[in-house]
């Protein structure tokens, strides 16, 4: 970036001018100083006795969690199935609403860039900005506790996620394929179905199973606020300090997530 002239008149090149170099070093120095200052600030407000005690406390908790109470599992199958259902139905609902939103939001398929697109983009941002646990909290108040609140919480959060990733995929398609189908005399809906949908199918499949995979994990905590699923059992077990039961729940959740991870990988592989 910096072309200089040496004393003997020949040209020289460096990445930065000496002045810019100095500024960069000053910047690094400032960043390190800020980090040290922040550490000092946090340290002053930490009760270190508790932190030094942490390994003992942790070991004590783990000791109380083992061995897991496997007999408790018999009471967990139903809530576990509820959790999977919340995630699956919630994702399906989000796909149903999110896919049309994506086509309304993508600048190459939207019916109106000035009117429709900004409104849809706002809906997408609104949906994405609120965590599903908070959606659940609100919905439990409105609908009462239960699975319905959980399903809607998952759906409301996922609509924005699916619509955003899908509209980005729609905007990245190869426009010459669209041009070619348009040139045959196809109508706009036909161009959508024949040139755009085939191109975004892999992205659609990937996004959907990815969100379903995330939703399985999110659905396991929704029970904490009363929105159904295995989280309710976890809450209850923690409240009565039944740590061996909590361990059993952890193991089941881990197994479920592993299976969902494997399934979504398979689906992504199949649709390329």
């Amino acid at each position, binding site marked *: 970036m910096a072309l200089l002239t040496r004393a003997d008149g020949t040209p020289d090149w460096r990445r930065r001018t000496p002045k810019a170099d100095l500024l960069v070093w000053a910047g690094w120095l400032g960043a390190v100083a800020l980090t040290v200052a922040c550490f000092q600030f946090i340290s002053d407000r930490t009760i270190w006795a508790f932190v030094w005690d942490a390994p003992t406390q942790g070991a004590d908790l783990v000791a109380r969690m083992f061995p897991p109470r496997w007999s408790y599992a018999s009471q967990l199958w139903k809530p576990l199935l509820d959790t999977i259902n919340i995630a699956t139905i919630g994702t399906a609902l989000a796909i149903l609403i999110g896919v049309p939103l994506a086509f309304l939001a993508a600048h190459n398929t939207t019916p109106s860039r000035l009117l429709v697109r900004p409104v849809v983009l706002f809906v997408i941002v609104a949906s994405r900005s609120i965590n599903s646990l908070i959606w659940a909290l609100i919905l439990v108040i409105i609908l009462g506790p239960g699975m319905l609140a959980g399903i809607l919480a998952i759906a409301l959060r996922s609509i924005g996620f699916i619509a955003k990733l899908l509209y980005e995929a729609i905007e990245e398609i190869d426009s010459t394929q669209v041009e070619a189908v348009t040139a*045959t005399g196809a109508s706009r809906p036909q161009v959508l179905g024949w040139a755009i949908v085939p191109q975004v*199918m892999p992205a659609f499949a990937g996004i959907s199973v990815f969100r379903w995979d995330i939703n399985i994990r999110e659905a396991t905590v929704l029970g904490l606020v009363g929105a159904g699923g295995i989280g309710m059992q976890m809450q209850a077990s923690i409240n009565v300090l039944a740590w061996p039961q909590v361990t059993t729940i952890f193991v089941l959740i881990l197994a479920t997530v592993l299976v969902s991870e494997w399934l979504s990988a398979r689906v992504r592989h199949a649709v390329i």
Partner: protein
Amino acid sequence: MLLTIEGLTKRYPTGDLALDKVDLQVPAGQVMALIGPSGAGKSTLIRCVNRLVEPSAGRVQLDGVELTALGSAALRRARRRMGMIFQEYALVERLTVMENVLSGRLGYVGFWASWFRRFPRKDVEEAFRLLDRVGLAHMADKRADALSGGQRQRVGIVRALMQDPKLLLVDEPTASLDPKTSRQIMRLIVELCAERGLAAIINIHDVALAQQFARRIVGLRAGRIVFDGPAEELRAEALTDIYGEEDWSQTIRPAEEEDEAAEAAL
């Protein structure tokens, strides 16, 4: 006259003048090569004909219908009579060869019929016949992205022919192909035009190929037509007009050589 272009002008929103009052006539059944340097407006010209690009001014008539005055539904009907062939083939990569070929019929079938891939029987028969004509009948159920460049361009040609067009708009059909395949594709296009009595405008930057396969050559430079004549009359002066100063002696196929080749063939 099949195609009449009058005073066609295209100025892009960036201010670039791609076409400057172009007048051009193409009679039915004529294969015409459109040559010129990159950025001369060749692509813009053929895209203004089927209005993939909206012209800024001027008129385009196909078979007496003024394309530049049509509303969107009438334009879609008119586009069916203009098959387009693209440089990068522009097949829908994730659809099968047969689906790509049948997409040439989209202008003739309704939305739901096309969504469920229910095409009239004669369309499917015609698709098989044309695929067989270009030697790809065995590939009908392959996905388009599994084909080689030359095979893809053949599918592109068949898709255009499925439209039952009167005019082919061909945009650099050989630019992504090797010299041998380029010649095969050009020969195929010219043969098919002769078989079906189609007119064609072929954008091409390879002057030798243009001379070999087209009887009439039109030279475009900076949005204006600077040469329009039979292939034999394209001389060094004309190429200088089109492309600028260069030693053209090796580019042009001398007429004598052609005669010798013809004699040798006899």
